[in-house]
């Protein structure tokens, strides 16, 4: 009996102490859930608009982006299997002018998320842009600068190699690192190489790229 009373008093004490915290957590959680539900379509649309804007700059002929029905799954740099949404970039005349997809990997400070565009035959890169990154301002964030990004435009869509010395103006599979930001430069090269080679192989395997060649 005494043990039961002790337990009841403990439960009562717990409720007395924490009821405000529990109630407040419930209502605050509800407020966040309602706000999120109300705003998430708009936030998602903003992301799509940004992506289309960035890819549109890389593939100027593209007027529309159509999601590929076939499922593409690649192994990320951390060894995880990840599904990739590949978009077919269509021109005003409804012809395929290229492909684009998102790819991500670890950077120097945080995860780097890129949008990558390749030509219709998946032979050359049309370039990349940074969707999100937290690289060091003045150093690592130079991955967003044209002089670094331009090295990827026209580079072969396959394995790329980072070099410390070279001519950034030469378009080939060698990418010249940003001085003082080798880790960020290497991260981008690895993300691009890893995603492009795997997606290309899978698309060839599934006959998707061959279909484009016939067009």
């Amino acid at each position, binding site marked *: 009996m005494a043990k039961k009373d002790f337990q009841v008093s403990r439960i009562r004490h717990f409720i007395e*102490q*924490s009821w*405000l*915290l529990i109630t*407040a*957590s419930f209502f*605050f959680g509800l*407020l*966040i859930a309602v*706000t*999120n539900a109300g*705003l998430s379509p*708009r*936030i998602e649309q*903003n992301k799509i608009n*940004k992506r289309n804007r960035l890819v549109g700059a890389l593939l100027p002929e593209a007027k529309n982006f159509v999601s590929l029905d076939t499922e593409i799954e690649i192994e990320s740099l951390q060894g995880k299997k990840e599904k990739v949404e590949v978009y077919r970039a269509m021109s005003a005349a409804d012809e395929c002018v290229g492909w684009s997809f998102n790819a991500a990997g670890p950077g120097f400070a945080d995860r780097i998320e890129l949008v990558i565009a390749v030509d219709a035959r998946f032979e050359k890169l049309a370039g990349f842009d940074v969707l*999100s990154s*937290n690289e060091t*301002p*003045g150093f690592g964030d130079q991955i967003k600068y044209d002089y670094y990004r331009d090295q990827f435009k026209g580079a072969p869509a396959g394995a790329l190699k980072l070099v410390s010395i070279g001519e950034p103006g030469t378009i080939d599979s060698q990418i010249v690192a940003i001085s003082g930001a080798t880790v960020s430069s290497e991260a981008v090269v690895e993300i691009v190489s890893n995603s492009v080679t795997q997606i290309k192989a899978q698309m060839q395997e599934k006959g998707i790229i061959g279909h484009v060649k016939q067009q």
Partner: protein
Amino acid sequence: MSSSSDAKAAPYSQTLLAGLWRENPVFRLLLGMCPTLAVTAAVKPAFTMGCCVIFVLLCSNVIVSLMRNLLKPHLRILMFTLTIATFVTVADLFLKAFLPRMSETLGPYVPLIIVNCIIICRAEACASKNPLVVSIIDAVGMGVGFTLTLCVLAAVRELLATGKVFEVQLMPEAFVPWAAMSMPVGAFITLGLLLGLVNAATGKKA
């Protein structure tokens, strides 16, 4: 009648002015240094950050003031943090939805408002001990004081780094921009100089 309303009005105006100058969070209390240094490279992000802080400060002061008599002393910091985190998340979602580019510019500094000492300091020092009206006035005073300070700091940095303020060219064409002013070093130098000026103006000694 009028003397009694004057007596009531005096503490309210004192509370409002305290945040603007006498207890200015940045220049006098040295609180909220992280956003002060991080987002003041230009006036627009500084102003947006200030508005977010006003919103969070106002909401958290209102909630804390309303539940001040229910707070358990040992759980109060937890309640403050929970309240602040909720409104910061709401502010962050609104920025992402309606000002996506500004949200990207401010980056992690919006979620970091959760650990901004000004807000938890006002919850502890004012809202948990005062009625609703005083807490609201205190939040407005402190929030506007913080925003104005951030904008002054950002205006000086943006002007010296780019020759412009709010994208309006103010410096003559011959002016050579000081790129360092838009970097962290510029933030430290400008804040240090402004703090020195404020101390000199108020006769405060180190």
